Structure formats: structure tokens, C-alpha cells
């Protein structure tokens, strides 16, 4: 059973500047959502709030399982993950970066190995597995970030501009992976992008952020 994410009347301001204003939206399990909007309109902020990384000033971030609300404890938090525009790689090998989320969950070694392998395979970084992660190119770094998030098999995957600063080839790999995930409908994808053509290719529900809220049309 997937997770429903429900935002209810979310407000967030930074130093008097209202960034998110009365934002309400429900993300259904297995859905794909693409969020667009100009720089500084609050997309990243909203994503951080929805991913339970930051508290809203007002409003509620609710998670439901078959209609029943779930406590936002560590177990729930472990069902969500976000890939940031700057990945934040750990200073160790590529494989150990991907293993991180599994290690802290105490996943058994053999299963960890298998999941790391398949995540690396998916983003085509298998040949880089023993390389130090900090020496990857920017495109490879983003693919690593994606693999690291996928390895923990989240119910909801947030992606904040996963292809903004990388080239066509890397973008293609990432889009391929995301499109496959989107078709499988096993997890909810929430993607922020500035690329309208890309947004169309994801064939999910397109949302715009306007006046601190999510809307269907500009």
C-alpha cells in the first residue's frame, strides 16, 4: 500500500518574505508530479517541507496509508527521500555512498550488495563503484544521487532539479530511469524542473507554483 501525501494550508516565510502561502495539495501514491515555476518562487522550500526536512510556519503535512494517518516518526521519514540540486556526496567510494541509506537501516550485507548493484546498474555507474565519489563529474554525481535515493526503495522520491546543470547524455540517462519508475507506479515521484520539454516527457501531472501555492494552470 502506497503513501498518500497531503499538504494542508501550508505557510512558510523567511524573514518577513512569504514564500509558501496557504498551499494545499494531495499527492496520490504511485503518481508522477512535475512542478515548475520561476526562480525563487518557493519550489525547493515546499519540497523540503513535504519531505519533512523543514517545518512549516503553519499548516500540516500529513501522510496516509489507505486513508489512515501515519505518525511522522523516523520510520515514516525513512519512506521518503529527496535528491538535492547539489547532491551532497559522502567522502568515500561510489558504492558506499549508495549503500549509506541501507547501512543505517541495518539491511543485511547480501541484500545491501544486491540493491547497491542494481541501483548502480540502473544509473549506469557500475564501472565507477570503487571510485571516490568526490572525483565524479557533475553528471555522474547527479546519477549517484539518484542511485543513492533509489537504493532505499522509498515510497516517495523528491527530485529538485535533477538535470538542471548537466549535459544531454546525462539528462537522458536520468530521464530514462525516472520515466521507467513513473511507469511502474510503485512509488510517488515529485520532480521540480525548469525544462518545459522535459516536464512534458514525464507525462505526469504538471503543476505550477504561483503566489506560494500549487496550481494546475498558469
Amino acid at each position, binding site marked *: 500500500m502506497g503513501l498518500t501525501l497531503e499538504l494542508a494550508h501550508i505557510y512558510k516565510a523567511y524573514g518577513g518574505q512569504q514564500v509558501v502561502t496557504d498551499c494545499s495539495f494531495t499527492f496520490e501514491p504511485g503518481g508522477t508530479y512535475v512542478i515548475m515555476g520561476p526562480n525563487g518562487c518557493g519550489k525547493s522550500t515546499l519540497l523540503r517541507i513535504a519531505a519533512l526536512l523543514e517545518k512549516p510556519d503553519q499548516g500540516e503535512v500529513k501522510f496516509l496509508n489507505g486513508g489512515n494517518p501515519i505518525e511522522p516518526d523516523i520510520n515514516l*521519514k525513512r519512506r521518503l527521500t529527496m535528491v538535492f540540486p547539489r547532491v*551532497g556526496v*559522502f*567522502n568515500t567510494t561510489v558504492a558506499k555512498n549508495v549503500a*549509506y541509506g541501507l547501512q543505517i537501516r541495518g539491511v543485511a550485507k547480501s541484500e545491501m550488495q544486491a540493491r547497491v548493484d542494481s541501483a548502480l546498474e540502473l544509473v549506469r555507474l557500475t564501472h565507477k563503484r570503487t571510485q571516490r565519489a*568526490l572525483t565524479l563529474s557533475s553528471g555522474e554525481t547527479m546519477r549517484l544521487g539518484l542511485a543513492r535515493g533509489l537504493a532505499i526503495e522509498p515510497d516517495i522520491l523528491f527530485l529538485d532539479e535533477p538535470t538542471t546543470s548537466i549535459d544531454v547524455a546525462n539528462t537522458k540517462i536520468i530521464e530514462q530511469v525516472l520515466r521507467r519508475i513513473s511507469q511502474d507506479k510503485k512509488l510517488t515521484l515529485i520532480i521540480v524542473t525548469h525544462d518545459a520539454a522535459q516536464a512534458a516527457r514525464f507525462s505526469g501531472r504538471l503543476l505550477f507554483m504561483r503566489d506560494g501555492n500549487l496550481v494546475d494552470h498558469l
Partner: protein
Amino acid sequence: METISQGFSRAVNLIFSGDRELFEIILLSLRVSGAALLLAALIGLPAGALFALKRLPLRSLVINLMNTFMGLPPVVVGLVLYLILSRSGPLGILSLLYTPSAMIIAQTVLATPIVFSLSLAAIVAVDPVIRQAARTLGATPFQEALTLIREARYGITAGIIAGFGRVSAEVGAVLMVGGNIAHYTRVMTTTIALETDKGEFDLAMALGIILLTLSLLVNFGLRAMQRQGQVEARFRQWD
């Protein structure tokens, strides 16, 4: 001039003759400073991490105090500990004065602020995006702290090495609470001070050479850690 060069060659001979007393002294020095460092790391690193990661009350006061204590005059530490450990002092019943334990305590007091402050600085310097990554990948606050400590490992190691450099070269505190008792509490620095005072330079010079070599190694270690940290920081260009 002659005495210096003659003394030097006699000192070198002493080192290579495997003199028992000399090695006893070196060993005790390393044991005292090593134990003090271990204790300082056990206290200073977790405390430094705590203050780096949590918005604790009195945070900036504690950080400022610890920064100031990095330069504590060893004789002042010696004096205060002497008063606490002497027979009429509050901890007099433990009979620790003039024992290696007292020397370890003194050096722990000297090293802890260094380990604390440098660990804190190293952890604070870790890119905030690393912390966010740990969190979103499901780390508990404790796992998050361990991750950041690991990311700051070069800076933390540099702090521990710097602490070792300070205590192993220090003479005031160990002399006052250790008493420089032969075969019991004599360490390199106190022996150098005492032997020089007596006008007997061979052992003093031999120990001086060892001490210099040690501090050379400490500096090499420090530089290596700092360089490694810088090299790896440079890679974080697009991440």
C-alpha cells in the same frame, strides 16, 4: 662550543646505546601523553560534535571559553591541580599527587580544549548539504552526527595531533603535579629541565633530540592531514 658538540655526540651515543633510563623516560612520556590524548579525544570530540551540531544554551560562551583554554598556561593548570590533589585539597584522599595519573589528568586538561575546538571547527565546516543528505537518507540524529564526524575526519585528526604536540612538549604542569621522581614520574620535558639545572647535559640533550624528532613527526602528521583535507575539499566543486 666544544662542550656542545661533545655533548651532542655523547647524547647520540646514549640514544643508540639503548640506555635503560632514557627509554624508561621516553616510554613514560609517551604513555602519559598518549593516555591524556585518548581521554581528551573521548571528552573533546563528542562534546565538540555536540556543540557543533546542536543549538545548546550558552553555546557561544562555551566555544569562546574553550578557544581561550587552548592557550592555558601549563603552570596555571599545574597550580590548580596541585591545590585540588594535594593532601588538604578536595581530592586529596585519592593520593594522586606525584603520580603518573596526576600527570595524565594535567595533560588531559591541556589537550581537551584543543581537541574540542578543532573538532568543532572541523564539523562546523562540513558542507550543510551533507547533513541534509544524511537526514533525507534516513539517518537518526545520532547516525547523522557520526556521518558528519566521519566527513570531518581530517580536521579532527589534525586536532588530536595538535593536542599531542602541545602536551608532549609541555613541562610546567607535569613537573608540578608529577614531581619528576626518578623511575616513577620523570618524563622527557621534566628530565631536560632538571638535568640542565644540575649542569648534566648528556641525558638532557639526548631527550631534547628525541623531543625535537617527535615534534617534527607531529608537524608532518598535521600537515599531511591538512593537505589531505584541502585536496578533498577542492573536489567538492560542483557538488
